[in-house]
């Protein structure tokens, strides 16, 4: 039985003019970390809010623990949510913030203080209990918000871009903390983000959303190596997958798989001339920008040469590059969906 499931979920705004969710079917498994990934406006936050009960779907159902909860208010759903801003109650101390959900559920005073203590110790904020939210740093606020979510012992955590308010340095450590926290408590978590690094790093599975639809659901390796369509192929990965139009199909290959021909071993490979425009040197890697010709229509592509590849390549020259055949992906030029190879590539 899945912890959270949505069936045929649709949500229209502005009396049907905007389809925020356009028929979504998705289910989580017990204890899983599911990441909803997509660009802004793709419907991921609306999906999360619909699961939380803050939005009512236009059609479809939300199931939590196998029970249909579509018509129920948030408080009847046994969920905990952490908002992007953490939404700590500014007039309450950390302790009052943490016990608030317990107070609302009618737990007696001694028990809820004990529970708050336990959550605060788990998140190492025991020394902050008497502070007000405005006296806390961003990281501390996040932990208070998590503690407040934790004390309810929810069936699912819903996290809405909880790292986006932190500065870049703190974000990496907070990401690490979030993951280890979830592994310790083992609660099913749905996590919304537009940051693919967060998604790849945190998710057991990633659901890629675009224009209110789920484009692909799979583990980080699967969505990266076998993208279901050109949107997923270009949204995930930085720089994105190169797509070259060849006879009604799009041939895709990741920048790190496009290497100077002398560095690609094995007989089964596709070679192509690359006219190099410029080269960027980024954290030890060389990003080579240029135009490939011969295999299909001339297309601008990017090759990422790791530090271990020392073959000289210089701007303004045409160099022979190659991609191993098993690294090529094929997409239908019309629908963008992943297909089998239907074209023959020269070289």
């Amino acid at each position, binding site marked *: 039985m899945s912890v959270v499931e949505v069936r045929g979920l649709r949500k229209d705004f502005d009396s049907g003019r905007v389809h925020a969710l356009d028929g979504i079917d998705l289910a989580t498994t017990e204890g899983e970390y599911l990441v909803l990934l997509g660009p802004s406006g793709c419907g991921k936050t609306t999906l999360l809010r619909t699961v939380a009960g*803050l939005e009512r779907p236009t059609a479809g159902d939300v199931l939590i623990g196998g029970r249909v909860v579509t018509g129920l208010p948030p408080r009847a759903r046994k969920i905990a949510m952490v908002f992007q801003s953490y939404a700590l109650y500014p*007039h309450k101390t950390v302790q009052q913030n943490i016990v608030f959900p317990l107070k609302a559920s009618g737990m007696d005073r001694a028990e809820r203080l004990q529970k708050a203590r336990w959550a605060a110790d788990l998140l190492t904020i025991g020394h902050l209990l008497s502070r007000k939210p405005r006296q806390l740093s961003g990281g501390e606020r996040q932990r208070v918000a998590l503690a*407040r979510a934790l004390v309810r012992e929810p069936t699912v955590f819903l996290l809405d871009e909880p790292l986006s308010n932190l500065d870049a340095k703190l974000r990496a450590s907070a990401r690490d903390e979030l993951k280890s926290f979830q592994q310790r408590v083992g609660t099913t978590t749905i996590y919304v983000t537009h940051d693919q690094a967060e998604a790849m790093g945190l998710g057991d599975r990633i659901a890629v959303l675009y224009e209110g639809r789920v484009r692909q659901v799979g583990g980080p390796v699967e969505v990266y190596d076998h993208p279901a369509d050109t949107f997923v192929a270009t949204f995930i990965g930085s720089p994105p997958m190169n797509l070259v139009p060849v006879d009604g199909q799009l041939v895709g290959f990741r920048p790190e798989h496009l290497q100077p021909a002398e560095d690609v071993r094995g007989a089964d490979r596709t070679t192509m001339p690359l006219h190099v425009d410029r080269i960027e040197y980024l954290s030890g890697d060389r990003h080579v920008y240029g135009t490939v010709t011969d295999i299909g229509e001339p297309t601008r592509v990017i090759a990422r040469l790791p530090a271990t590849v020392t073959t000289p390549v210089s701007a303004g020259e045409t160099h022979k590059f190659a991609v191993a055949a098993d690294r090529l992906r094929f997409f239908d030029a019309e629908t963008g969906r992943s297909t089998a190879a239907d074209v023959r590539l020269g070289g």
Partner: protein
Amino acid sequence: MAEAVRTRAALPAVGARRRLSDREGALGWIFLLPSVVYIVALVGVPFVLAIAFSFSDVTAGDPSFDGVGFRNYRRIFDDPVFWHSLQNTLVFTAISMALIVVFGKVLANILVADFRGKWLVRFLVLLPWTTPVALSSIAWLWLLDSIFSPIDWVLRHVGLLQTNTYWLGRPYLAMASVIAVHVWRLVPLAAVIMLAGLVAIPREIQEQAEVDGAGFWRRMFEITIPLTLPVIAVAALFGAIFTFTDMTVVYILTRGGPTNSTQVLASWAFFRGIEGGDVAQGAAIALFLFPLLLAAAIAILRAVRRMEVL
């Protein structure tokens, strides 16, 4: 070379223009001047005059100024109507303020909700505030008339009342009527102030409370009210000041009657000083509004400062 010369030639003109618009100190004074003149002429001078008059024997018939020390104050302290007016002023203000806050809060909660025809309701609600006090008081005078009152007519027809009610003719009913009109006219203002406070609460905080399992009343008393408390205080103080200083409602509805039972400081000062012609005593009575208003003003400023901290 030629260009350099031209630049230097153009410099003084640019400099002069800059100097005019750059002198923020002078500009500040120029822009402030109209309001300073206004406040000095229409608030400062009358205030000083009132203090001076209160220590004099100036009357409408004899405007010559002779100092008489505290005689006016002794006389008003000996006058039971003064004490009754002071008591009425405080009672009216306290009761109106409490009702204004409660009704304003309820109204603000209704107005913040999303429903069809919201703008029409908001417009209607604001109407009492935008109507001049004198006009609306005259309308109320008719509504509370002893013979033609539509309120009585309705109550009689639903069987709640056998005969006419003398709304403005019996002391307690008259007091209740004055309070009712104050509340009616100030609730919209309080509601709009509190509405602004409600709107300023981040939506995520409300939603968080919902997800945390709090019902309507818990959200109201543990989240909404604590977070809007400074704004509620401002609304309460506005209500208090407007009730405290107002004489129009009393003047038009009851003229302080029956037998001074609805007399307030402002109306009593007016009757004594202007209608009675004893300017000196009128000034002395009116000055009793000052310490209380000062306290209210300080309280408002404190509340506003606390709001900024939050």
